[in-house]
């Protein structure tokens, strides 16, 4: 099981500003190990962010997203105390879901 995501969600005016740092190898499948064997690809393919039952951002990723992926975005309609839920699924079907409470501005 991967380590928890670090999520920061804060009000910025009437919008919620979200920053998330995920813990994932994001192995490209192009790299070779010390013995010269190809390291198989292992990377996050889908990311979904929901708030109050509504998807506020979804993404498909390839192997060229950096290791320990970072994402920053903003959405309208959130209030302090409400939750932002972020989930990812990688190419091996491993998944992780974390949530954060929206903080004041």
């Amino acid at each position, binding site marked *: 099981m991967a380590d928890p995501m670090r999520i920061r969600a804060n009000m910025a005016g009437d919008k919620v500003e979200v920053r998330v740092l995920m813990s994932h190898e994001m192995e*490209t499948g192009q790299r070779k190990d010390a013995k010269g064997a190809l390291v198989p690809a292992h990377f996050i393919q889908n990311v979904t962010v929901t708030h109050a039952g509504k998807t506020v951002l979804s993404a498909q990723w*390839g192997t*060229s997203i950096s290791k320990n992926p970072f994402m920053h*975005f903003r959405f*309208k309609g959130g209030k302090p105390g409400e939750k932002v839920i972020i989930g990812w699924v990688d190419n091996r079907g491993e998944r992780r879901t974390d949530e954060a409470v929206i903080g004041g501005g």
Partner: protein
Amino acid sequence: MESKRRDILKAGSGAGMLALAAAAGLLKPREAFAQQWNKAAFESKSVAATLKALGGSGSTESAQIQITAPDIAENGAVVPITIESGIPKTQAIAILIEKNPNTLSADFDIPEGTDPFITTRVKMAETSNIYAVVMADGKYFHTVKEIKVTLGGCGG
């Protein structure tokens, strides 16, 4: 034999139902496939092929899309990129890296209420043009920025 035929009948009507639901607008295509991964697009090896795999036939260069990224990236493994679209009805933002082994890096779906703005970090194999492709109101727009890479982020 009998049971097999029934299975086929069932399968047939199931698919029919799905098509009906889609036709009735109960399932929007992008929602229906939200958890899917566009394999063809991510395996594309050129900007044109990626655009095609994403569903666009062509793209117009637009000054309303901004890429904020360093001109020179010392470490190709971590290149911060911010894309902001000023185009009304922006629905999706994709990041394409022309000279990477696979061109498409990420495709973000921007629902209504979410700013057409995204920051993330990507890997770059070598100095390359970055294309920010925006889908707005069903049409495709893009802007380009070159980033020089001192140390590649793939292989190594």
